């Protein structure tokens, strides 16, 4: 039998990282195969994560915006027996449209997709076994592992997908519960906690940390917590979960180390994610897995096997779709020997689709202070005309400049439109524009983008106020 020509690149997984890796390689004219264990392409992002939760979020947001923006003109309340299915009625349509867009894009670019589980049988050969137990093999010059992650199952939480859910099953609830405990303080926990609170569910969020989203700017996160409390949510700081148990009747009891018992109708366990690599036969390929259960990679996303790359959740945080996409694209370029531009820290913003939205780019205030000082400018959305008109009361944009107040080191935003607004700062950072640019250029009025000018003016003011001090310090030193 004639041996089949090896594939230039085989991508395992068709989530955001895998898609972009495959598209990049195909655009470069290479022969590309994608192996997907699910019947549908798109990965957890499309079917269980980003797209479905954001669709529910959009409904919650509309509901909350209607309440805020209509003043007291109309009384809006959620029917008691509201079905989640009703709230996500657009979800299936959005998911199908997105999946079909991805499938079309792959087809258009000549990418072949095999449905089945992948397993290395040698460093360059992968066996793919279908649901019907039929096997075939693919030889690859390079392999990109983009198999994603799944919710971590911490032993002490008996997840049954009926009363105690994880993030894969939480949207299978047919009715909105009256109360929900969310365990965890990461992106997924924060997003779902705030979405359900906005929908009128009594949410208790429990995290072992002093605040959720520990990697973000503390002031921004506290602002988020204020908004969460306003929508009826409660955050339990330094809450260590001792046990979680369904009482067999109608309540899940979460017992904390402090002795407090949180009694709720349902529980969402969002205590981290674990990389999907079981069954891949990584040991056969010479790919190492570290003690944290992640696939370690170098700056080019190469694993311990030089022709095998790994991207997305399988290599660890930040576990965001946008970052994973970029990692996939870059890995494909490295694998094919194509050039890569180093854009530095401004390459990848972070977007947290909580209510309110949070976005971050570059350094936080504390990081900048620790690295030689910073001048921080703030703009409250409630002081902007657009903020007033749109009843956006809890928004805050922070520009983090260097100690001289001239160069932008980071942008931190909380509030409606944060994930879009952050890109203005991203372009300024990539273009190395001075802070004064925001003061000198014209922004449409009224817009939330005006926050950049207000925050920049704040920096200019602080810079001026700080100058005499600096001058006197120099004089004394001299």
């Amino acid at each position, binding site marked *: 039998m004639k041996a089949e020509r090896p594939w230039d690149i085989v991508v395992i997984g068709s989530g955001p990282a895998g898609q972009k890796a495959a598209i990049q390689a195909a655009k470069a004219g290479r022969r590309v195969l994608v192996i997907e*264990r*699910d*019947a549908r392409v798109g990965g957890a992002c499309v079917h*269980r994560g980003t797209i479905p939760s954001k669709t529910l979020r959009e409904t919650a947001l509309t509901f909350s915006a209607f309440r805020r923006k209509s003043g007291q003109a109309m009384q809006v309340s959620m029917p*008691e*027996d509201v079905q989640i*299915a009703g709230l996500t009625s657009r979800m299936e349509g959005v998911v199908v449209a997105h999946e079909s867009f991805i499938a079309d894009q792959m087809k258009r670019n000549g990418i072949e997709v095999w*449905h089945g*589980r992948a397993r290395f049988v040698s460093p360059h050969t992968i066996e793919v*076994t*279908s*649901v*019907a*137990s039929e096997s075939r093999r693919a030889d690859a010059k390079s392999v990109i592992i983009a198999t994603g992650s799944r919710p971590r199952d911490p032993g002490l939480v008996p997840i*049954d*997908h*009926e*009363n105690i859910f*994880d993030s*894969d*099953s939480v949207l*299978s*609830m*047919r*009715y909105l519960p*009256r109360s929900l405990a969310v365990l965890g303080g990461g992106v997924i926990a924060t997003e779902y906690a705030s979405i359900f609170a906005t929908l009128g569910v009594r949410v208790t969020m429990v995290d072992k940390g002093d605040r959720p989203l520990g990697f973000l700017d503390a002031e921004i996160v506290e602002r988020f917590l204020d908004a969460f409390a306003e929508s009826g949510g409660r955050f339990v700081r330094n809450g260590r979960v001792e046990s979680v148990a*369904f009482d*067999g*009747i*109608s309540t899940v009891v979460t017992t904390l180390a402090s002795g407090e018992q949180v009694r709720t*109708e349902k529980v969402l366990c969002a205590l981290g994610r674990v990389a999907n690599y079981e069954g891949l036969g990584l040991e056969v390929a010479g790919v190492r897995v570290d003690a944290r259960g992640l696939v370690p990679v170098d700056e080019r996303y190469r694993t311990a096997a030089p022709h095998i790359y790994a991207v997305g959740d399988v290599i660890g945080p930040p576990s965001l779709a946008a970052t994973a996409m970029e990692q996939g694209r870059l890995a494909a370029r490295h694998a094919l020997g194509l050039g890569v531009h180093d854009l530095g820290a401004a390459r990848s913003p972070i977007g947290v689709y909580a209510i309110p939205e949070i976005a971050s780019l570059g350094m936080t205030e504390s990081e900048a202070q620790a690295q030689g000082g910073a001048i921080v400018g703030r703009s409250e959305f409630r002081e902007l005309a657009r903020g007033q008109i749109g009843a956006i009361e809890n928004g805050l944009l922070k520009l983090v400049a260097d100690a001289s107040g001239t160069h932008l080191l980071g942008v931190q935003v909380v509030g409606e439109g944060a994930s879009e607004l952050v890109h203005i700062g991203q372009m300024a950072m990539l273009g190395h524009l001075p802070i004064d640019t925001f003061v000198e250029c014209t922004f449409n009025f009224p817009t939330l983008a005006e926050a950049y000018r207000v925050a920049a003016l704040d920096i200019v003011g602080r810079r001026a106020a700080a100058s005499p001090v600096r001058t006197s310090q120099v004089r004394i030193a001299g």
Partner: protein
Amino acid sequence: MLQLAVNEDSRLPNTVAELRQRLTERIAARALELPLLPDVAAQVIALSTSDESDARELAEVIRRDGPMSAHILRLANSPLFRPRTPIVSLQQALSRLGMTQIRQIAFAVSCKQRVFRARGYEPEVRVSFRHSFAAGLAAQELARARRWNVEEAFLAGLLHDVGRPVLLQAIVDMHGNNRMLNRQAVLTVVAELHAQVGGMLAQKWSLPARVAEAIAFHHDPHAAKLAPQLSILISFADDIPACDEEQTPDAAAALLKHPLLPHLNLYPDEVTAIIARRKDFAETLQAVA
């Protein structure tokens, strides 16, 4: 063609085609008598969607139904739950089994008592109920594996064949237990029409639209519009042999090559793990059926 009747009585259908036509006309004219949702089942559904419900209320509903109470106590004392001391009260049973399980059992038993019955067709209806209950248990485990709604899957699995006893009873009502009716022919027509009638019944009972669709389309799941995945899941659960039946190695292997598995994206090891729980299902079934 099967001959149904040999006499000249015009009220008796003469052929399978004629019986089919009579039933189809009744279905189309909405003239087929559909049973009401049993009281206990209705109350159990109401309690399960009410935030204020508690175990005492559920116990009260069940206590009012003697045979139901006996079933629940028998189940609580079955090897499946291995009680250290005998369970003698419904309250004890509730805390032992949990409200979710009791709700399922109560719903299943009340449907068995009030709906899965047709005079003269007792053996067929008994088999049908056992199969339905087993399909409900399998469906909920399949749903759990796919991270889909578990309660909805159980309900759709339990009721997927509910059209069979309803049609049999309708035929008995139309023609009595006339011996001239060819039993096999009756069962043939019932097999053809039961999914449609089951879907109608679920609508009449105001069950969720997704459940009604999965029942109506369990023999043609790809035609389902609202809940195609649930319909596929129920269709597959329908093909899992009843848990108290012997499963030959060939049948087990064939199940792992089932054409619907790619649509459910369940790999052989995942299906095997679910099928391996048939013994648990059988014990539950024994207590209920």
